[in-house]
């Protein structure tokens, strides 16, 4: 069953952490305020063979040192036949795998359950039809793209959900869909035109294949990793986890703090341009109940945190796009 925390902590440690957070002014072990995140690092284009990828780490202690939560996300496109599993207009499948190195104290069974639970939340949110991009179809009625979004949790130092959604958004932002061209087989021109003429009044027959879509196959018009960006990439959501202790909440819990917190509220928000922010997913996780007015307050404040997170993530993603374009340019210029 979904555990609120993956490590065990003694009662004394739990109460120490809880008292620190509830005291005035609040006190956390690493000196942060309740609403402060640890430093977040993000890099796109980390997996060369994927169509889009990103690495996110929260709370790493220095550039070349370890620690912190680390997640790698990569998207890979596959061509799918609509006669088999494919869906008209393409589909998205999200999977999260947790490295056993990140959870050394879990049994393999518990690890399987954990990654399935995280996958479910990610998949249910991102694969919802209201967020579906428009350019995953190839040939109407025949072929479409299947987008696999695979995430690996390399290490967990708390707040894994925020990291997962952030890296998922970055990888989807980075994804390039290869442009495709339809191939049509045409009858040769030297046949007499009149032979194929169909009388307009003739009843439509199911055996008449001449009226069906002609395109039978497709070819790639791009080479290698070029292509167009995924449609609606501004829409992909971000997640903020509100950790609730009685009526106060705090953000970006470390592993120890997570173990001392009984209730978490996951809020997944999307900020599409020119429309109001929309809630794309909400989950209450934990072994405690909470009053409805409190939850409404949490949502209200969570929306603001999500907006701040979204704006800074957006700026970073645009900066990354620019950096990689620049990098490609200098590389190209040097090789000539």
């Amino acid at each position, binding site marked *: 069953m979904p555990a609120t925390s993956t490590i065990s902590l003694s009662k004394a440690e739990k109460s120490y952490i809880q008292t620190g957070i509830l005291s005035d002014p609040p006190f956390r072990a690493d000196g942060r305020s309740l609403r402060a995140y640890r430093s977040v690092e993000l890099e796109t284009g980390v997996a060369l063979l994927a169509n889009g990828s990103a690495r996110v780490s929260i709370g790493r202690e220095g550039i070349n040192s370890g620690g912190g939560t680390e997640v790698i996300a990569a998207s890979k496109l596959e061509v799918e036949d609509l006669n088999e599993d494919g869906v008209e207009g393409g589909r998205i499948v999200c999977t999260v795998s947790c490295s056993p190195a990140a959870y050394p104290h879990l049994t393999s069974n518990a690890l399987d359950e954990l990654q399935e639970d995280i996958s479910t939340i990610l998949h249910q949110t991102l694969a919802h039809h209201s967020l579906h991009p428009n350019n995953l179809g190839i040939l109407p009625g025949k072929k479409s793209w299947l987008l696999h979004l695979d995430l690996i949790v390399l290490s967990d130092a708390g707040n894994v959900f925020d990291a997962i959604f952030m890296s998922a958004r970055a990888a989807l932002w980075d994804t390039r869909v290869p442009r495709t061209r339809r191939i049509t087989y045409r009858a040769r021109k030297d046949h007499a035109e009149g032979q194929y003429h169909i009388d307009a009044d003739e009843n439509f027959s199911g055996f008449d294949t001449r009226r069906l879509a002609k395109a039978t196959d497709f070819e790639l018009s791009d080479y290698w990793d070029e292509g167009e960006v995924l449609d609606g990439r501004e829409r992909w959501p971000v997640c903020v986890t509100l950790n609730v202790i009685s009526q106060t909440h705090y953000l970006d819990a470390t592993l120890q703090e997570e173990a001392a917190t009984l209730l978490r509220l996951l809020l997944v928000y999307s900020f599409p341009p020119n429309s109001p922010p*929309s809630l794309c997913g909400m*989950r209450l996780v934990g072994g405690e109940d909470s009053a*409805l007015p409190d939850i*409404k307050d949490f949502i209200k404040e969570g929306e603001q945190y999500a907006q701040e997170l979204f704006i800074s993530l957006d700026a970073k993603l645009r900066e990354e796009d620019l950096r990689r374009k620049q990098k490609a340019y200098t590389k190209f210029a040097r090789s000539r």
Partner: protein
Amino acid sequence: MAQLGIDRRRINGPEDSRPPVFTQDEKVQPTWNVGDPRQGRGPKDIRPIFLKPGLVTQANGSAYIETERTKIACAVYGPRQSKNVAYHEKGRLNVEVKFAPFSCEVRRAPLRDAEDRPLAMAIYQALVPSVRLELLPKSTVDVFITVIEADGLDACISSGVIAASTALADAGIEMIGLVTSCSASIVGGDIWLDLTREEARHSRGSLVLSCLPALRTVTSVWQTGQMISDEAYKCMDLCQSRCNDIHVVVAQALRENV
């Protein structure tokens, strides 16, 4: 050809199956469009509930719930000793959801995709704050839910929660209150409660709220799809007031069974 990984003791159906298309269904043209008023019941109405505790005699507690075409049976075993698990001072609640092969439009093969963990997770989350697990060290309470007929995923969660909570009460396991649950969705610009599978196709976003009406607290919120915050607040308010009504139904069913 015998294949590996398939239980040969069962009578296996064909490799793949497709839902039958009845001529009667084919003829029915969809007359309903997004934006039209709801057909069959009001937007804030939920389906009538039939609830009966104590139908599975060998279980410590059980319940059967039927809301039109959603039919769910739930059996509770325990508290019993946790085996092969390290000592834990709190008890463990174990929720398992199984689908009957014939419960959905497309056949769910036994063993392979009969078990639904996301659904179990949702029901677990709704129940766990209500059960006093701190009184049951070293023990496990098993909740087995069988979906006999499913009509909408959200309805499965909410009916499953109601049945499981009733069964837990029937088993005499200490709880801080009865959990009831209700779902709401945005269809067009309107909020509808308790959607059927057919109606859920047109919904933009949906929310399942589970609460303890006796304490006026919420144990689980499960939202998918898109809705703006105000819509979410409205959905939650509507669900909570419906949950209070459902609480009366559950209490009545338990009283009649005593």
